[in-house]
C-alpha cells in the first residue's frame, strides 16, 4: 500500500510539474503578464501603452494586423471594410457628422466624442456598446484619454494635442470625467513606509543584491543598458514601477527590447540593441558590457519577449528592502 501510495504521489507531482511547465510556456509565448499598466504622460507612446494595457481598448479593437479583437471596428487598415486608418477615417466621418448635425465638426471632435459619447456615430454592423472609459471599471483619467486620442491620430495622421484640447467636446469630457467620485477609488499605498536613503544604497551599491545602477542611470551615475530613471516617478505611477521591478517582461520600454543573435559560429548572444549600422550590431548585456557583432557573422537576429532584466527581485529582496528601493524611486520626480 505504501509503495503504491508513493508511486501515485510521485505521479501527481509529475503532473503538477507538467502543469507548471505549460504555464511557463504559455506565459512565454503570450508575451508575459497582460496586466493593467498605467502610464503617465500625454503622448502617442503613452496612449499606445494605454490602448494595449489599462484602457483595455484592445479587447474590442484591433489595429490593422495587430491584435485579434473583432467586437469593435478595426482602427488600422484591414481588409475591404477598413481601407483607411482611423485618423483618416475620422476626417471622413467628421464630414458626415457635420452634415447630419448641421454645424462644424472636426476629426478631433470625432475622436473626442468617440470617448465622450460613442453612440453619436456607430459604425454599421456594430453595436452601440462601447463602455464609458472615464467611468469604472476602466476609469481612465482625462490625460490618459487624451493620450489615447493622440495615439489614434498617429495612425495615419499627425498627433495634434492642441486640436483635441480645443474641441468643445473636450470641455464636456473634462467636466464629465471630473465629476466621477473619488470616493470609489483608493489611492495607492505601499505596505510599508520605506527609507529612500537605504533604497538609494541598494540602487547604487555595486555589491548589493540588486545593483540597479549597473544598468540604469539616475542623474549622471549608472549604466545605459536599461532606461534612464532620473525622473521615473514623474512620468510613471507607482503600480507601474512595482510591476516593472517584479515583472520586467510585462512591458518592455520602447527602445530597450532585447535581441537574440545567433552567429554563424553557432554562438548565442543576448542583449539590448544599442547601436546598429550597415556593418554591425552592438548589444549590451546585463553587466553593461557591449559586444559588437559584424553583420556578416549574424545568421539570425530575433527580438525577444523576455526582458534581460532579472525577474527574481521578488526572491532577492526582503519586504523591507523592496519598500526602501521603492521609496528611493518615488523620490525621482
Amino acid at each position, binding site marked *: 500500500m505504501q509503495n503504491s501510495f508513493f508511486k501515485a504521489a510521485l505521479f501527481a507531482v509529475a503532473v503538477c510539474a507538467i502543469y507548471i511547465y505549460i504555464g511557463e510556456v504559455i506565459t512565454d509565448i503570450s508575451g508575459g503578464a497582460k496586466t493593467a499598466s498605467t502610464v503617465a504622460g500625454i503622448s502617442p507612446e503613452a496612449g499606445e501603452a494605454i490602448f494595449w494595457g489599462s484602457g483595455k481598448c484592445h479587447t474590442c479593437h484591433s489595429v490593422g494586423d495587430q491584435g485579434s479583437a473583432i467586437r469593435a471596428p478595426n482602427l488600422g487598415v484591414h481588409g475591404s471594410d477598413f481601407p483607411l486608418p482611423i485618423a483618416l477615417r475620422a476626417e471622413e466621418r467628421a464630414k458626415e457628422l457635420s452634415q447630419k448635425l448641421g454645424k462644424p465638426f472636426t476629426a478631433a471632435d470625432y475622436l473626442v466624442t468617440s470617448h465622450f459619447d460613442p453612440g453619436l456615430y456607430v459604425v454599421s454592423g456594430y453595436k452601440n456598446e462601447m463602455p464609458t472609459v472615464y467611468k469604472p471599471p476602466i476609469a481612465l483619467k482625462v490625460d490618459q484619454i487624451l493620450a489615447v486620442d493622440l495615439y489614434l491620430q498617429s495612425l495615419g495622421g499627425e498627433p495634434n494635442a492642441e486640436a483635441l484640447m480645443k474641441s468643445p467636446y473636450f470641455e464636456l469630457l473634462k467636466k464629465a470625467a471630473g465629476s466621477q467620485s473619488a470616493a470609489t*477609488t483608493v489611492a495607492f499605498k505601499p505596505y510599508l513606509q520605506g527609507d529612500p536613503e537605504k533604497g538609494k544604497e541598494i540602487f547604487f551599491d555595486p555589491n548589493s543584491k540588486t545593483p540597479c545602477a549597473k544598468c540604469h542611470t539616475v542623474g549622471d551615475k549608472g549604466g545605459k543598458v536599461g532606461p534612464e530613471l532620473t525622473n521615473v516617478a514623474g512620468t510613471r505611477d507607482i503600480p507601474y514601477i512595482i510591476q516593472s521591478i517584479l515583472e520586467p517582461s510585462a512591458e518592455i520600454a520602447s527602445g530597450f527590447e532585447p535581441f537574440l543573435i545567433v552567429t554563424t559560429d553557432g554562438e548565442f548572444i543576448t542583449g539590448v540593441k544599442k547601436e546598429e549600422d550597415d556593418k554591425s550590431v552592438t548589444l549590451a548585456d546585463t553587466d553593461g558590457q557591449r559586444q559588437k557583432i559584424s553583420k556578416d557573422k549574424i545568421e539570425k537576429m530575433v527580438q525577444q519577449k523576455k526582458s534581460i532584466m532579472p525577474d527574481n527581485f521578488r526572491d532577492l529582496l526582503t519586504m523591507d528592502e523592496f519598500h526602501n528601493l521603492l521609496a528611493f524611486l518615488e523620490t525621482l520626480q
Partner: protein
Amino acid sequence: MRHRKGTIALLALTAVALAFPALAASDETYRTFLGYDSRISIWIIAELHLMFGAFVLGVPIFAVTIEIIGWKTKDPRYDKLAYEFTQLLSGAFGFTATLGGLLAFALFGLYPKFMDYLAGVFHDVMYIYALLFFVESTTLYLYYYFWHKMAKQKGLHILLGILLNVCGTVIMMVANSWASFMMSPTGIEAETGKFIGTAWQAMNNVLWHPLNLHRLLGNVAFGGFVCGAYAAIRYLGAKTQEERAHYDWMGYIGNFCAVCGLIPLPFAGYYLGREVYSNSAVMGNNMMGGAFSWTFIIQAILIGGLFIGSNYYLWIGMHRIPGSERYTKYIKFIDIIIILCFAVWLTPHNLPLSAEEQIAVGGQYHPTLKYLGLMSGKNAVVNFIILSTFLSFLLYRRANLGPGIPFSRQGGKSRWILLGVAGGLILIMGYYASYLLHLNPTELDLSADKEKYFKLPAILLLIQIAAVVVTVILTLKDRGKIGQMMYLGITIVNITFVLGVYGYIVMAVANPFLRNVAVTQWMTMMSALTLLTTLDVFLFKGAPQVGEMTWGKMPGRSQYTLIFLCVFIVMLIGLMGFIRSGLRENWHIYGVMQDGSAGSWTPDNALMAKVVSACGLIFLSAVSFLFWLTSASAKKDHKSEGEPSLPPKATHPTAGKAARSGG
C-alpha cells in the same frame, strides 16, 4: 470523540469570525500576512478552502444517490459504497471548517476596510450562514454516525442525506452571493459608492445563479474524480482480489459521477461567461480577449485532458466486459474525433509572432488555423467532444448486454415515459424555435435586414423536432436502435457541421446573434443526451448479460488515469478560481471599491500555475492524510464486519436492476 470536539471548536471559531464583522473596524486599509504578501496568502487559503468545500459539497450528492439506488434495488453493496464515500467526508469537513475560519480571520485582518464594506452589506446573511453551518455539520454527523443504527429506517436516513445536501447547497449559494456581488455589485449609489440596497438585492445579483450552477456541477465532477483517485490508490495497494474488485468498482462509480457533472459543465461555464459579458462588456472582453485569454487556453488543455482521460479509462474498462469486443472497433474513431476536436479547442486565434514568423505564416494569423480559434469553432468541437464521450458511455453501458425486450412488449408505462420525454423536448425546442423566428433584430442592436440570419437555427430546431417524432415512431415499431443512430447523426451534423460553420457567418455579419446560435447548439445537444439515454434504458431493458463482469482486472495504467484525472480537476478548479477572482483586476468590488494594495496587479500564467500547483499539492496531501485515516478506520470496521463487499454484476449503476432481472 476528540476529533468531533475539535471540529465543533473550529466551527465555533468560524462562526465567531463571521458573526462579528466589527472585528474589521480599523483605520488601516491593508496589512501584511506575517510580513508576507497578503494577496498570495489569501489566494492560497481561499483556494484550499474552495477545494475542500467542493469535495464536501460534491461527494454527498452522489453518496445519497448511490444510497437511494441501494435502497431501491435492495443491494447492500451500494449501501456500503455510499457509506465509504461518506466516511471520506467526515474528516474533510473539519478541514473545510478550519480553512473557512482561517480565511475569514485573514480577510478581516488583512483587508479591514474592504471587509468592513462587505460586512456592512451582508452582515445579516453572515449570521444565517453561520447557523446553516451548524445545521449542516450536525446533519453530516447524524448522517454518518447513525448510518448503521438507522439501517431499518432507511427512508429517514436518506432524508437526512437530502437535508445535508440542501444545507450544503444553500451554504454554497450564500458564499457564492458574496463572491458574485464582488463581480457584479447591485444596490450601489453610483455617485458615492455607498451601498443603499438590501442584503437580498445584493445576494440576488446577476452572476449569482450562473455561479451557483457552475459550482454545483463543478463540485460533483470534483468530488467524483477525487473519490476515483482514492479508489485507484486503494486498488493499486490491494492485497486480495476482493479488495481489487471493490475498489475497481468504486473507481468506476467515482469516474461515472464525475463525468455526469463534467458533461453539462461547459454549458454552465458558457452561461456564466455570457452573463459576465452581459453584465460588464469590459470584464467579458478582458476574460476572452484580454488578460485571461491565454489562461483559457490552459483551461482548454485541462478540460480536454479530463475528457480524454475519462474516455480512455472507459475504453480500458471495456476489456473487463465480456461482449465488449463487439464495440471496441468503434473506439478508434471516437478517439480520433476527440483528439481532433481537442486540437481545435486548443487553437488560439492570435499568436504573438515575430516579424520572421509573420513572413513565414503570411500575416499575423495563420490563413487556416485562425478560424479554429474563434468562438464558433470552439462551440462546435466542444459539443462534438461531449457527444463522443456520451457515445463512449453508451457503448460501455451496453458492452455486455444482449438484445433486450422489444419496446412493443414493455407495456404502457414505457410508452408514456417515452412520449413524455419526447413531448417535453418538442415543447422546449419548439418554444425556442418560435422565439428565434419572432426575434426582433433591434433587441440585439442589429438592423432589420439581419433578421434573415435567425431562420436557419430555428429551422434546424424544427428538424430536430421532426427527428424526435420519427425516432419515437421507430421505437414504437421496435426499430429503436435505428432511431437512436439517426437522432445522434442528425444532432452531430446540425450542431457541429451546420451550426459550427454557420457560426462564422453570424460572427461576421450579425455577431450578437452568435449567443443564440450557441443556445441552439446546447439545446439540441441536451435533447440528444436526454432522448438517447431514455431510449437506451428501454432498448436494453431486461437484456441478458453476455458474460459476467470481471471487476478487479484493470491494468495499473487505468488507475493512474484516475489519479491523473483527480490532479487535473484540482488544477482546473484552481485555475477557474483564479480567472473568476482575477476578472475583477484591481477592484475589490468591481467598479465600486478599488484595490489600492501592492498586490492589485494581475499575475501571469506562470505564477498562476505555480500557486495553483502548490495549492493542489497541499490539498492532495491533506486529503491523502484524511484518506489514510479513513482507511485505518475502515480496516477496523472490516475486522468487525468482514472483508470489502464485491460489486454488483451490473455494468452500470443505473442498469443494475434491469440487467439482473434479465439475466
